[in-house]
């Protein structure tokens, strides 16, 4: 069986991201070479897994570890080694922290926030209609909606959004910010959360941040002060950065697939399956990230991954695997079986997945329902795209209706 000593590493990412198109290399790799050696701009060589089944093993099998990567020169697209809190841990450490906040993000709890999210979305669309077209959907709708929802859930003042939204870029930046700026923004975010924590020690407040402070103060073995602050900062930053990006991504893809958009307009009951399909179809990650380290020799995709070697899971590629998804490159908003890995898989399955689902359903449902003539206000080539981030999406999405 092939192992790492017998193959030459190829440069990865294969090319700079092109809008929301998945690099065509992946289709060929899934067919011919499901595990290849790659060399990223920074860090040690790695395996890249591109098939759905292999990606699920890398993400879900306890023999693949994130904690084992701590202290290693991890393969990555950014100069710094990110400090990722829970995402750098394995069970049971990871479980100890995740359990503290998991309850606030269950489907049941998130459902209680839906009517409020709808109210916020309707208010934002009212303002857009009032001001008249054109409008930048990123600024006017996609950014404030998830920020207001996570602010109310955590207990962070919405009025401070310009500051913490700026700082939050540090958690998704690869090269958009310098390592010094990233450090500075993280410190600012932690300092800000530290102040909100201090307020709750003076006067208990019934919000998620208040509950986290109580959990620490009742039993200091459960989490350290630093873990408390970093966990809350992670929830605030991750709690909106990705959804802020996915709303315009989803709208862009819908506008690019007018027949599917017309189908959704004709049948709003398709919104939940449309959101799942868009989660599958949109390769949010600019490149594969967060390698898992094998803790023992494991056969995967026809090669021998040796203990201690890192494997990168290509989530966007897994979501286009034709052995799982019929006609995988077609957007089908009514797709029935859709076990995509857009939120990852295994212990690190996105903590905010149910919240993101709900927000995306509300966002897409509201835009389709209230702005039936929604269209780009500029020619498509003029849509500006973000770069230097872990995620991809439009910097601005000028729309008319």
């Amino acid at each position, binding site marked *: 069986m092939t192992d790492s000593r017998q193959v030459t590493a190829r440069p990865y990412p294969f090319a700079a991201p092109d809008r929301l198109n998945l690099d065509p290399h992946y289709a060929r790799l899934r067919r011919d070479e499901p595990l290849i050696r790659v060399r990223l701009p920074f860090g040690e060589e790695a395996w890249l897994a591109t098939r759905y089944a292999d990606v*699920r093993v890398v*993400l*879900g*099998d*306890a023999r693949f570890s994130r904690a084992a990567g701590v202290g290693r020169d991890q393969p990555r697209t950014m100069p710094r080694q990110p400090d990722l809190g829970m995402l750098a841990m394995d*069970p*049971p450490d990871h*479980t100890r922290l*995740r*359990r503290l906040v*998991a*309850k606030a*993000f*269950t*489907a*049941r709890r998130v459902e209680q926030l839906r009517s409020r999210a709808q109210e916020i979305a309707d208010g934002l669309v009212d303002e857009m209609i009032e001001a008249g077209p054109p409008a930048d959907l990123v600024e006017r709708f996609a950014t404030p909606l998830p920020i207001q929802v996570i602010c109310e859930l955590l207990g962070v003042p919405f009025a401070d959004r310009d500051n913490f939204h700026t700082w939050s870029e540090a958690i998704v930046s690869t090269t958009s910010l310098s390592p010094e700026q990233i450090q500075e923004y993280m410190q600012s975010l932690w300092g800000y959360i530290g102040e909100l924590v201090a307020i709750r020690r003076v006067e208990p407040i019934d919000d998620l941040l208040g509950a986290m402070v109580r959990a620490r103060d009742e039993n200091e073995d459960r989490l350290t002060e630093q873990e408390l602050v970093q966990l809350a900062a992670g929830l605030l930053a991750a709690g909106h950065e990705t959804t802020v990006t996915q709303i315009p991504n989803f709208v862009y893809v819908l506008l690019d697939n007018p027949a599917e958009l017309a189908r959704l307009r004709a049948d709003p009951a398709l919104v939940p399956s449309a959101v799942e399909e868009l989660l599958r179809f949109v390769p949010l990650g600019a490149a594969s990230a967060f390698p898992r380290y094998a803790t023992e020799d494991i056969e995967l995709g026809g090669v021998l991954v040796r203990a201690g070697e890192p494997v990168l899971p290509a989530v966007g590629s897994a979501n286009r695997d034709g052995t799982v998804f019929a006609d995988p490159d077609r957007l089908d908003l009514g797709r029935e079986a859709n*076990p995509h890995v857009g*939120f990852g*898989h*295994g*212990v690190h*399955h996105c*903590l905010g*997945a*149910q919240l993101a689902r709900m927000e995306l359903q509300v966002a897409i449902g509201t835009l389709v329902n209230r702005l039936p003539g929604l269209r780009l206000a500029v020619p498509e080539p003029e849509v500006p795209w973000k770069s230097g981030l872990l995620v991809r999406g439009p910097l601005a999405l000028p729309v008319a209706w």
Partner: protein
Amino acid sequence: MSAAWRVSVDPHRCIGSGICAGTAPEHFRLVDGLSIPLADTVAPADPVVDAAESCPVEAILVRDASDERVIAPES
């Protein structure tokens, strides 16, 4: 602490996140994308409660085998 717990996964709620199988691989595995307990009755063990408390759709139910009292998830 009771002598045995009964573990079940509601297949209609399960979304196959894989969190339970990663948290408690001795107790849960995914079959055709959905979680099932490896044994219906188990000796009390923290990872079983961890898995039930970490499930994003609260599909895992852990009860005391003797009196049906719910061990996890907390409501």
